[in-house]
Structure formats: C-alpha cells, structure tokens
C-alpha cells in the first residue's frame, strides 16, 4: 500500500461566524479536525478611535471610549477619567469615587455574566446564556435608571460623574444583590459542574504563566494561569484600597493550571468578589456633590501619562499626551482583549476546531476593543 497523500486545509473562521464574538477572521490551518496554525486577521471593526481622539476635546473622547469596549463602558470611562485626573491632578470627592466604584463593579458583573453566558453558548449550552442575560438586564436597568443609557453611558466625567445617583438607588442595588447571589449557585449547578462542560474545558488550551506574561495577557486570563496580579490590588487607583476583597486565581480545579476552565472559574469567582465590593461600597456611600470638582475647561498641563486600570477583560491602559491645548495630542488605548487574542495561535496549536472555539470563548475578547 502506498502512503496516502494528505494536505493541510485552510479553514476560514469568520468574519461572519456565530462564535467569533464580533467580526474576527481566523485563518486556520487544519489537518482533519486538528488545528496546526491560526492567523488572526483584525481590523474589520476599526473605527479610528485614536485618530478621532486627536480631533476632539478631552471630554468628547469619553463617548468614544464607551464604544471601544461596549460590554464594559463604565470601566472604559473609569480608566480614562482616572488617567485624566492623574494628569490634571484633580481630587474628586468621596461620593464620586464611591459612585464610580459601584458603577464599575456593576459593569464588571454585567460583562462577566455575558462572557460566561456566551462561553456556555460556544460550548453548546443555550439555557445558561439566557439566564445570565436575564440578570445582566437588571444591571442595565439600574444603569438606565442612573444615567439614561443602557449600553454606552458616557457617565463618568473628568472630575465627577454626569448624574448623581437617583432616588433609592442603594436600596434597589442591595435588593438586586440579594436576588443575584443565589443565582450564581444556579449557574454553577446548571453549567459549571456539568460533566460535559468540565470535559470540554478542563485541560484544554493551557496558557502557562510565563507564556501568559510574555504575551501580555492580563486580567482574568492571567489570573487563570495562576499569576496573582490585579491592578485594583497591586496598583490601587480610585479608592480600591479601601475595600476588602480577594483576588481569585486559577488553581487547576479540574485539570491543568491555566486551562479554559480556570479562566472561566476565575470570572465566576470575580463576580462574587464584585458583589462583596459592592456591598461595602453601598454601606459606606457618603453624601456630597458630584459636580464639585468638574473643571471649567479641561486643559491639562503639558506632559504625558500612562495609567492602567482593571477592566473586566484585564489591564486597560491609557496613554495620554497633552500639549497644553484642549485637544489631546495623542490618546492610546492599550486594550486587554488585543493582547489576549495575540496568544491564540500559540495556545490552540494541536487542538481541535471545537477546542479553538472553546479557547477563543474563554479568552473573552471584545472585537470593538481589539480593533478600536
């Protein structure tokens, strides 16, 4: 018998594909089901955020930051305003800080809920996705109650927030948390502990810690690899140093350290930590004026600053260069999903097509943020 001649096949996943989380195109070299190389092609969603920013004033950049990471707009805003305030040396009132933390953590829960739900969808479980979206909807309702918008808020301003909290917000938020906490257990029972789910995710797509650091992977993906790094804890910004919370890191619960399950599980635990922070913040929420520190005109001194904050996807960095005019000279956004996607090729070599989808889902990328 002669040797059967086989050849590798190029498979195009995307730009229109159900589970690329946006318009991402993956050029996958496959040998049967086994993947040997992945070339991601980006840019289908490029909206020139950085070029735009050089043509609008500092406060007008904020609506554009919303649209980069549209699943965690509050955190995008948060990062930008924290950076700007550090550049301009503005001290905002305690109430503003607390409101920002509350909004940021609520948005983190919302973002993680979507990430986890969509991950279930990638694996094939439809129902948990809708349960999680159902609860995310309540968070969006609270945002709408506060600032009128459900997805793209433009809520945090340099030196303050656009609106004070509405009537009874604390009560509503506590009510939501009381409702929400038992739901986490239901998600776990329905999806996390499901044996099929564990089989699909455990041991799959292992990112070792050194590879993760070298690829600049950050946030829950990095913590899933067992690296204890959380900007909120290690480089505290805003008032995160006042709260008590743990940084969950992956421990290889059902398989190897740094596999898809660990990344999933870290997100699930982070939701619980966010609930903890929220409860503390709501308890201590001081009163005050939220517009007190708003500068009349945003005209930062000449200089540059790089500041990173913890968005639900990881280290969200802003590099802002000011030349003294009211229009920024350069705004660079270091997006966490961009770095997370870059390691896809290395991680998914040798896995099957189904696993590539699982790995891609576990990295929790948002194409709006990658392409900016």
């Amino acid at each position, binding site marked *: 018998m002669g040797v059967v001649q086989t050849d590798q096949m190029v498979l195009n996943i995307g730009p229109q594909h159900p589970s690329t989380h946006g318009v991402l195109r993956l050029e996958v070299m496959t040998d049967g089901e086994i993947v040997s190389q992945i070339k991601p092609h980006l840019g289908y969603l490029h909206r020139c955020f950085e070029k735009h920013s050089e043509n609008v004033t500092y406060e007008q950049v904020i609506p554009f930051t919303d649209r980069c990471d549209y699943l965690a707009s509050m955190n995008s805003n948060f990062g930008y305003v924290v950076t700007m305030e550090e550049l301009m040396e503005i001290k905002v009132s305690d109430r503003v800080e607390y409101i920002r933390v509350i909004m940021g953590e609520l948005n983190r829960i919302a973002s993680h809920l979507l990430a986890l739900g969509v991950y279930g969808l990638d694996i094939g479980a439809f129902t948990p996705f809708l349960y999680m979206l159902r609860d995310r909807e309540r968070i969006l309702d609270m945002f709408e109650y506060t*600032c009128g918008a459900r997805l*793209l808020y433009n809520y945090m301003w340099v030196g303050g927030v656009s609106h004070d909290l509405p009537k009874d917000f604390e009560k509503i938020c506590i009510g939501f948390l009381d409702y929400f906490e038992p739901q986490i257990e239901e998600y776990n029972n329905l*999806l996390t502990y499901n044996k099929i789910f564990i089989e699909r995710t455990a041991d799959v797509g292992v990112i070792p810690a050194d590879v993760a650091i070298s690829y600049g992977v950050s946030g829950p993906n990095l913590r899933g690899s067992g690296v204890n790094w959380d900007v909120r804890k290690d480089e505290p910004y805003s008032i995160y140093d006042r709260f008590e919370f743990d940084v969950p890191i992956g421990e290889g619960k059902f398989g190897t350290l740094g596999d898809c399950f660990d990344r999933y599980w870290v997100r699930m635990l982070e939701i619980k930590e966010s609930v903890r922070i929220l409860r503390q913040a709501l308890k201590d929420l001081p009163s005050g004026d939220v517009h007190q520190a708003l500068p009349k005109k945003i005209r930062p001194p000449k200089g540059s600053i790089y500041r990173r904050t913890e968005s639900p996807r990881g280290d969200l960095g802003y590099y802002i260069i000011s030349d003294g005019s009211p229009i920024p000279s350069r705004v660079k956004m270091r997006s966490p999903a961009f770095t997370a996607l870059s390691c896809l090729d290395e991680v998914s070599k040798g896995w099957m097509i189904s696993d590539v989808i699982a790995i891609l889902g576990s990295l929790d990328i948002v194409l709006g943020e990658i392409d900016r």
Partner: protein
Amino acid sequence: MYKYFTNIYETVNTLWTGMRITFRHMIHIKRDNVTLQYPEERWPRPERNIGFDHKDYNVIRSRLHVDIDDCIGCLKCERVCPVDCITINTIKTPTRGEDISEVNHTGETSNGTKKAMVVSRFTIDMSECCYCNLCVYPCPEECIFMVGGPNSSKHPIDYEFSQFDRKDLIYQFAKKLTPDQKKKLESPKPEVEA
C-alpha cells in the same frame, strides 16, 4: 476501573442536577417569565425587574428635542457634539430682544434672556447622534434635551422613532424662513430708536 465508574456516576449526577433546574424553570414559567411582548407591552414597565418608576429617572436618553423659542443661538451644543450631528445657522437680529412677527420669532426666552439671533437653521441628524448627552449640559437656556424622563411633562418618551429614509432622520427645529425673509433679515436695516 474505580475512576471509570465514578466518572459515569458524576456525569449522570451533574446532568440530572442541570435537568432539574431547567425543569423547575419550565413549570414556573408564569412566575419567571421575563419576556416583554413588545408591541402590546411597552417599556417602561415599572414592575418589571427591579421595580422603579420612570418618573424617578435622572434622565432618559431617547430623542433630542429643542424648544426653539428658547434657543438663543449660542452654538454651544454644536461645538460640544463629538460627532457633529448638530448644525445651527443664525442671523443677527436688528434689535436685541424684540419679537419679529413675520418670521414668528420671539424676542425673549422663557427665562427672560433677550435673544440677539434668529436661528435660521437648527438640524439634528439623529442617525448620527450617539446619545452621549453632552449637548444637554452646556445649554444656558436648557432648551435642548432628551425627551422623556424628568422632562416627561413636556414631551412623552420617544425611543422608537424610525423612518424609511435616512434623510428623514434629520430633524429640523428652526422655524422655516423663505429666501425673501432671510434676505430681509440679513440686510442691514437703518436702526430707528424710539
């Protein structure tokens, strides 16, 4: 061998747990249902989810509206718009704060500010609007706002406006001027002080 059977046991057990949850949701659909039957039931539905009244909202971002009689043509909203969807043209009035009846222009705003401009064009391209709410804040007369919310007494919430043609989404708020009227306004008039 032991692992083989514990694996099977775990599988059956966890799958059964999941099935119990979905079944529980299925039989309690009356209680758990979250669907909003859109054309029949409309947002806001205060009893839904958390249970707040839309009257308590800080703001509702639906459609921009301008009370043109209050507009003094200061162009602040045009300048602050990050996507340039607001376009305003103004013509200087001969006398500040005086009604010009032929173009239906009122001289004073409801706050009592005397107007120095006739707004000959005030268009908002709602297909470009990004609902950032930035134009609402700088307005000195509070004449541009998102309908609904705290302003609901003036205008009902309109969040489902849609048009067949993209051009129709360019809303214009200024009162129409014929070319003749325009010319008349633009031409310098000999001022007669009484």
